């Protein structure tokens, strides 16, 4: 059961990272040079994804 939970979490992180990369591709071109953001941790990604779903 733990493995199943772990796998679900990994899938969620993977989907969130795909969306984050897509979003950063867009933003990277618009930001001023030197203003890039660091890649988030898995937990930060999940939080970001949750906030996004709440907003949209």
């Amino acid at each position, binding site marked *: 059961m733990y493995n199943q939970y772990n796998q679900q979490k990994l899938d969620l992180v993977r989907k969130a990272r795909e969306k984050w990369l897509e979003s950063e*591709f867009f933003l990277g071109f*618009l930001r001023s040079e030197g203003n890039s953001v660091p890649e988030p941790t898995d937990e930060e990604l999940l939080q970001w994804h949750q906030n996004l779903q709440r907003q949209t």
Partner: protein
Amino acid sequence: MAPEFTTSNLKIFRPDQINFNFGAPEKPTTPNEWFAQKYPEQIKKFGSPFLELSQPLDQFRVQIMPVSINLDFFAGVLGGRKDLGRHVIYYQPEMDWYFKDADGIYKPTTACKLANLYRALLMKCAGEMPGNIHLLNLFHEYRSEKISKSVILRAKSILQADASFFSAESKNQRVKGPELFERVARVFVEEMLSAEPGQILKLQEAYTFFRGLLKQRNLPDLTKADFKCIIGPLIRDQFNVALRNDLVGEGKELRGWKGVKLLTRTLPG
């Protein structure tokens, strides 16, 4: 040999082709499908990204070539994807571009950066297409300066926001930088002045007009000395002329820029 166009082999992407099932989306096989997968809202609003020509290569395969681009669609694409929390506007009171960054704050960007993004999206699409897609227009023609500029120009109206977008009552927050004067000065020089042999742009005339632009945007006034400091380098870069104190016009000595003309004496908007 030039491709033969008939209505049967010219195709557009229709909104009802958008896949609404909740499984993993199929890999796109044409440029239209690629953009439709990423920007379904823009498909619904503006229609197909391209008109695509389909030509048989042999008994089993067809070659697909985008032959006409939908500027409105790509202007809409530059507005960003709501599902990713991205948003770009053309803020009409300042005639400038803003994008919503990851922290939710709107920050300034430029037309050139938007054009870079547009060209990068086309290149990304080209890089993910199968071998039967003719890439010439995606790679070259639609990424030209002329088409890029046309997309940005179209985006100015499609993504236009009025003063209420950043009003005191609005929930939209933006970064307000000290370079606001320079931004207005750039718009003044690039869009309201032109090169005109024999004409003189008088310093006083330019300064008065510029103060009107500032007032229109609820920006603070500035001294003539500060105005000269900001505008001088910009006019030099754009028209290759410096401010002169020895010009003669209307029977008297004038200070101004020779060979430059103010296009209108009426404030825009």
